[in-house]
């Protein structure tokens, strides 16, 4: 049976429609879930996407309130069962605030942050990201070719990875950095937001969760885009269809 993906929204989410269209184009059976949806209904989905935006207006900190929203119980339970979870931009911030990524500690706790950009201003521009490790390190990118370079849109005020040095070491040792910022030719570049390790995306220990700051789903709607399906969403579709992808 085809996996069903819930695109979970909170008050202030704003990228769910683009995310839905990117899923549709990639052949993913997805549905946008309003924050008033019952927890029981949300639990019925096989995988989740947390889209971008400003959940709860970034009150307290970006992602901090949504990370403790009742609907996140379904996401945390799914994460514990090895289900696939993709968080984009604000969704990525929520995953870090929930302690699901990088997920080094037991019990789960907040270990890192997508903190305010080094320049303390909103970054809005087209960027390229390149796989920093073997594609299979994260199940969601497993179908991408090695060293894949993907165009995306950075649109965030808080996308700078920050963590204590010991955690950064463990992120490197455990190959948690899935994507690093790159030039169009694939050569790595300094992160435009000052992100530690020049990281654009992180995964958890098991490689089942991807927290990515740039918006892959907006490429589909961009006038600069290559025609076709977003490679990241195509890879996500492949992961969902693979044995164990939605189990």
């Amino acid at each position, binding site marked *: 049976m085809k996996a069903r993906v819930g695109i979970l929204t909170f008050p202030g989410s704003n990228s769910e429609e683009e995310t839905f269209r990117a899923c549709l184009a990639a052949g993913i059976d997805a549905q946008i879930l309003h924050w008033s949806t019952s927890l029981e209904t949300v639990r019925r989905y096989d995988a989740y996407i947390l889209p971008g935006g400003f959940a*709860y*207006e970034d*009150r*307290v*900190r970006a992602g*901090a*309130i949504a990370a*403790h929203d*009742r609907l996140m119980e379904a996401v945390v339970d799914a994460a514990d069962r090895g289900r696939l979870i993709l968080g984009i931009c604000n969704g990525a911030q929520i995953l870090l*605030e929930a302690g699901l990524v990088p997920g080094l500690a037991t019990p789960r*706790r*907040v*270990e*890192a*942050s997508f*903190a*305010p950009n080094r320049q*303390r201003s909103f970054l809005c521009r087209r960027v390229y990201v390149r796989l920093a490790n073997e594609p299979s390190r994260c199940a969601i990118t497993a179908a991408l070719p090695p060293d894949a370079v993907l165009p995306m849109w950075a649109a965030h005020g808080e996308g700078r990875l*920050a*963590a*204590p040095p010991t*955690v950064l070491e463990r992120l490197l040792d455990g190959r948690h950095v899935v994507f690093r910022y790159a030039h169009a030719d694939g050569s790595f570049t300094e992160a435009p937001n000052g992100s530690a390790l020049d990281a654009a995306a992180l995964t958890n220990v098991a490689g089942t969760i991807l927290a990515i700051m740039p918006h892959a789903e907006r490429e589909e709607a961009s006038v600069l885009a290559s025609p076709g399906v977003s490679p990241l969403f195509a890879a996500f579709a492949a992961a969902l269809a693979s044995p164990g992808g939605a189990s």
Partner: protein
Amino acid sequence: MSLTVVEIRLTIPDNAARTAFATLTRLGVPVGGLERAELLFVEHELPPAAIAAAVRADEIRFNENTQDLRVRFQSSPAVGELWVHDEPPTIRTIVGLGRAQAAVLWRLTDREGEPANHALLNEAAKRLLCHPVIQRATLGSLPLGGEHPTLR
């Protein structure tokens, strides 16, 4: 140069404080009330009253229709208060005064309406109000004369 601490709080309902209160309650933190304010740490030779007047006159920093302003007598948190500083610090520019560090003040009460004690402040900071990596909290929960503990 002397340090003047200016507190700016909303006079209209504070949605951020209400949301934070609801979230802390949901997390089981026994908080009875929660208020929020912005703190500006102004180092300047002007007297506190003149600094307050300058902040009031800065329409970016202060809106008299929705905010209230006061100068703090102490440059450390009072009992029941939690001051959260970003690391690196958030800097605000105030017209006529220049740059000032900013922080968020959370004023907590317990379920009896008393100022929050150290344990409650500590729990609220750790569970929600202070990020362990990018923020630093100072807890105002010791008797007068005691050194204020800092939580990272």
